[in-house]
């Protein structure tokens, strides 16, 4: 019961802050609302027995990516949106978004969870430790994708440098 209440509060905060992300005129406000949303998600991760993921959610998203975004906003000195109103675009976008929501929820009511149940449960996570579980999976079964990820990041770094250089 207590868990449900907590969940509801966090969910409400997440939804409200996410709505603020898309409604705020000032991008800085949007960015801060998004940070709020990310914190709510991190909370959910803790509730789902994934404390390490919660930690990196805060560190990587809130700490790194969002800082980068805010930096760019400030660097470019972007103010509120100006120019013509695009009500028909807002209307169309909202309708499509609601359709997406409707379809997803419809699917949730119809669908059932299949698949075999794995060995991981709360007890195991508490006994072994979440970081160790993730680490073991990442450095054994998923070693190759993990290494490829580093390549992806390298490419992204080079791309970012080249794109933002004044003269190549």
């Amino acid at each position, binding site marked *: 019961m207590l868990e449900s209440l907590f969940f509801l509060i966090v969910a409400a905060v997440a939804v409200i802050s996410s709505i603020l992300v898309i409604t705020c005129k000032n991008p800085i406000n949007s960015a801060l609302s998004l940070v709020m949303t990310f914190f709510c998600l991190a909370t959910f991760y803790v509730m789902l027995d994934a404390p390490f993921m919660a930690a990196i959610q805060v560190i990587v998203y809130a700490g790194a990516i969002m800082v980068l975004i805010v930096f760019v906003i400030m660097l470019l000195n972007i103010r509120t949106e100006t120019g013509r109103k695009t009500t028909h675009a807002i209307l*169309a976008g909202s309708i*499509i978004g609601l*359709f997406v929501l409707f*379809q997803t929820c419809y*699917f949730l009511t*119809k669908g059932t969870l299949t698949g075999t149940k794995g060995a991981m449960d709360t007890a195991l996570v508490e006994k072994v430790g979440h970081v160790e579980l993730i680490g073991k999976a990442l450095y054994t079964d998923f070693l190759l994708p993990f290494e490829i990820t580093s390549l992806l990041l390298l490419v992204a770094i080079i791309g970012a440098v080249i794109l933002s250089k004044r003269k190549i």
Partner: protein
Amino acid sequence: MFEYVWLIPLFPLIGVVINGLFGKSIKNEKIIGGIGSLMVFGSFLVACSILFRLLSLPSEERLYELNVFTWIQSGTFKADIGFLIDPLSALMIMVVTGVGFLIHLYSIGYMHGEEGFYRYFTYLNLFTFSMLLLVLGNNLLLMFVGWEGVGLCSYLLIGYYFHKKSAGDAGKKAFVMNRVGDFGFLLGVFTLFWFLGQNYNIWTINFVELSKASHLLPVGGIVTIITLCFFLGATGKSAQIPLYTWLPDAMEGPTPVSALIHAATMVTAGVYMIGRMNFIFIKAPETMLVIACIGAATAIFAATIGTAQNDIKRVLAYSTVSQLGFMFLAMGVGAFAAGVFHLMTHAFFKACLFLGSGSVIHSMHHALHHAHSHDDPQDMRHMGGLKSKMPITFITFLVSTIAIAGIPGFSGFFSKDEILWQAFANPYHGSLNYVLWGIGAVAAGFTAFYMFRLVFMTFFGECRITPKAKDHLHESPFVITLPLMVLGFLAVVGGYVGIPKVIGEVFGGIPNLFEHYLEPVFRISEEFAKEHVQVTAHHSAALEWGLMGTSVLIAVVGISIAYALYIVSPSIPAKFTAAFPGLHRAVYNKWYIDELYDLLFVNPCKALGRFLWKGFDVVIVDGIVNGVAKVTMGFSGVLRHVQSGFVHNYALTMALGMVVIVGFYLFR
């Protein structure tokens, strides 16, 4: 030895590749000409060894087929790249490579300094290759490839001086007229293939298999149609009525080309083709009659035109047409061996005549060039008295002229007389034989007349060239005179391989070697003729002697008239033309046949073309095309607005598409 037959067409092909690809950068005329000539000489050596090998075999075994690979295989249709060696093709490759080599050699001297020297030798080698393919091919389709190839080379070489409009037009004319003939040839192939396959389940175009199946063919009927189609092809290639007018125009090409293609080899392809298919032609008496009549008509018709031409090469061109007419007359009366014999001797003396005229033109051209005169170097009215200036050319030319006129002892006599005798004595055409013989004899008389007119106007009498140019006239270089001497020699002795029977008997029973040699090729026809044709009358040897004497007499009369008109009293021809202006004009203008064709075929075609262009193409075809374009443009003008260029709209559309697809899978 026979298995090396593929080398014969390969050598000229190598020459084509070398000269065609690298000739422009080689530049050195001696190397280019040397390669071209050597390749043909290589083929000639192989051809010689094949001929000797063939002669060493008994006559029944003189047949060899080499299938190199299967070219087309489609259902019941099969065509090989394969070569057939029998006495006929062995003879033809000897003529093609032998005369061809001499003319290649001659060309080195004649074409010296011409622009595009390498191009000339490339075409000439390509021609040799195609011609060898034509005569060696063991099936109709491969023969057709060669047939088309020689047509192409003929076109290319006639239009060799392509900056001259008349040369380009002449090339086009030759090509288009040959197309008409090729159309007939192809129809013949199709019909023959279909007919044999449908009725006897023999699906073949191979000559050996066809000859084995020929006994199944009915006499007349569809075989007449097939053979008429083939004969149409022959008239196109061999310049017979009604498709002969391209050959005189083809003289726009270089003179050695006229000698090789338009006298010695290509134009005889029609004769060769009928000889090759003799077992089918013999089954169509109506076609044989048509061939004989057209041959005789062409012989006399072209001979009359030849009497009034002033261009030295045009006289020879009409002479060629006329002589080809003799060959077809021989084919039409069933004297295949005689026709092929005349083909061979004609190749010798006519090539020699053309090369001789080339030598004269070459010399005239240089002399006129030095004198800065713009007279036509080919016009006989500017020549005269050349015999002392150019002795070798004169002697070889005279010898060949005597040969073509049919004076006993020279090659032309043996072959032409054999044809005339066969025209008289053959068992196929009944009383029409006398007419055929008469026309042939008169045509022979005309031949003697205009050929000696040519000789007298060119080599005898007063030199009519400007005195300044006269000093520059000189004999041609050795590379030109050597082929002349060889061909002149052959023009004399070439006939002795086929001495007629009656003469042979006088000299102790010398057999007609040539006829005997070709006998295996025409055996089927001979047997058919023995079985099915009633020999109406047996002709005595005395009659043959009489006819022979008559034809010689006619030839002598022709020569005498020429002597009287052009040596004794040169004023008579002018008086004669003044007396009969209409006749002279008609003959001089080639009986207005070109104009008639223009009126009947060319102009209607042009009018139809113009109508199709202005009426059909512009209005209907372009209308449809433009209409389609306009409709598309209209639609796209409307649909263009979808492409707003705003990223938002694209994102929206993408999301909408996602929703629709997911919705389709959720709610279906």
